[in-house]
């Protein structure tokens, strides 16, 4: 049992490493073949002598070879050197250190709020068995799903409401819809009807016979919700002036700062993968319990 767990963990780590390496190849390709690659502004610095300029050019010639460029890129990545941002003229790692806590705080708070509200609504809609509650909650979720995150962010700015709430409102309808469907499907199983016929306590029926069998899927949804919140962070932070990595990505895209943008995408991908893997591993444990 313990060995199987270690094997699963190893598989997840292997998958993450493979995806990050492939993502790194794609990222390196984007940076290497982006317009303006190989142009170094320092060549225009009149204080540099001919030898220094020749050295700069020599380095560029080496990096024109994609394989050499990729090896250098990976080597720098392993040393924690994510390169320099062209727009901000600062190391990418420094910018990340500065901006990541803001996004982590927004995403953490919004996920906590979205899960509390969305999952409670889903439980209420399924357990109350009242069509008006179900329809009302579905309409609310449907309405929120039809609003682009950017428009919602602007409306919140106009209403002077806390912008972080927008992230919660973007994730909430997805959590409600998927968990409602999962719980409704689980509640309609014959063994739940039997438990009700035998007069089991409602709470016991809910936790042991409705929620437990769908726990792995609910946990998978938790992993996906991290990705949803991080994606919504771009328009929300850009339009509400929150200094997080979403805003940084937007500024980098407008300035076509590829090194910064590619590293940001890779880091967000890594966070998403870690969240998904953690949820998946936890889900495996629940699958064992449910079985």
């Amino acid at each position, binding site marked *: 049992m313990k060995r199987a767990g270690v094997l699963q963990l190893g598989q997840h780590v292997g*998958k993450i490493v*493979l*995806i990050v390496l*492939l*993502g790194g190849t794609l990222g390196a390709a*984007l940076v290497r*073949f*982006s*317009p303006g690659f190989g142009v170094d502004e320092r060549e225009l610095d009149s204080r540099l002598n001919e030898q220094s300029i020749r050295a700069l050019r020599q380095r560029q010639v080496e990096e024109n070879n994609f394989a050499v460029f990729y090896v250098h890129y990976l080597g720098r990545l392993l040393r924690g050197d994510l390169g320099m941002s062209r727009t901000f003229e600062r190391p990418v790692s420094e910018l990340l250190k500065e901006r990541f806590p803001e996004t982590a705080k927004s995403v953490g708070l919004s996920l906590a709020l979205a899960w509390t509200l969305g999952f409670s609504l889903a439980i209420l809609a399924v357990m109350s068995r009242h069509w008006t509650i179900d329809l009302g909650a579905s309409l609310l979720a*449907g*309405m929120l*799903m*039809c*609003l*682009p*995150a*950017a*428009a919602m962010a*602007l*409306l919140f700015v*106009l209403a002077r409401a806390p912008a972080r709430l927008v992230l919660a409102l973007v994730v909430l309808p997805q959590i409600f*819809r998927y968990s409602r*469907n999962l719980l409704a*499907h689980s509640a309609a199983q014959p063994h739940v009807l039997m438990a009700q016929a035998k007069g089991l306590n409602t709470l016991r029926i809910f936790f042991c016979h409705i929620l437990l069998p769908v726990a792995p899927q609910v946990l998978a949804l938790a992993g996906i919700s991290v*990705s949803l919140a*991080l*994606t*919504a962070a*771009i*328009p929300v932070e*850009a*339009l509400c002036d929150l200094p997080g990595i979403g805003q940084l*990505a*937007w500024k*980098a*895209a*407008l300035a*076509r*700062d*590829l090194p910064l*943008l*590619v590293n*940001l*995408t890779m880091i*967000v*991908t890594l966070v*998403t*993968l870690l969240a*998904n893997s953690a949820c998946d591993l936890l889900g495996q444990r629940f699958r064992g319990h449910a079985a």
Partner: protein
Amino acid sequence: MKGARLAAIVFLMVVGGACVFADLLLPASYAHQFRDEPNAAPSSQHLLGTDDLGRDRFVRVLYGTRVSLLLAPAAAFVASLLAALIGGLAGFAGGWVQKGVMAATDLFLSLPWLFLLITVRAVLPLNVSPLISVAITFALLGCLGWAAAARVVCADTTSLRESDFVLLARASGSGGWRLLWRHIVPNLQSVLLAQFWIAVPAFILTEANLGMLGLGVAEPLPSWGSLLRELQSYSVLSGQPWQFVPLILFILVVSSFHLLLLKQEWSA
């Protein structure tokens, strides 16, 4: 529920018809500036008033809706086609081909959608003509939005490949392309249609987000993204509620698409 779906279909047909025939219905072009009437209130001449450059807002709403309503389905078609090709061929081939293609799909799916989109958008030129910006935006949506659908198509193709009627067709001498074209592709139509309809509202929402961030369709061509960006203007607060009309229309159109999709969900 049936009534709501019917209302959604009628609403989409009316909006679609008005947008397609906008050239015949409207007196001015979306770029025409009424220089004497910037920020005008609604009147019989300008049903939704004018924007700060004096352009008729009603005209721009109709043209913007046309851009999104025609091109989002086009992008969804491209995405569904790619999904059918990639997922279908992987599912039909099976073995290592399927494993490799699905691993690539997993990689694609693990990249957060908007981050991937703005990264690829940033590689392409930003300062382009409006028509090229439209083509780039929707081509990107189509080319990058295939992964989730490809997984579903691959799973369906695998189950079809292992089904009894395909086994019978193999036993009768069918093989290769004939098997794929005559027996598997016709049975994938419903799943591809569902993926197409799922993609349309998702692409409309993504285009609106991109447009509001200044990475979508370029001015002066209107799109829902650029129309919704007008909400950034604080004049909305100073008593111009008609500026919310594009947002209301947007919500109604996207909800109508969602209503068309709800049938399966409710029956589940």
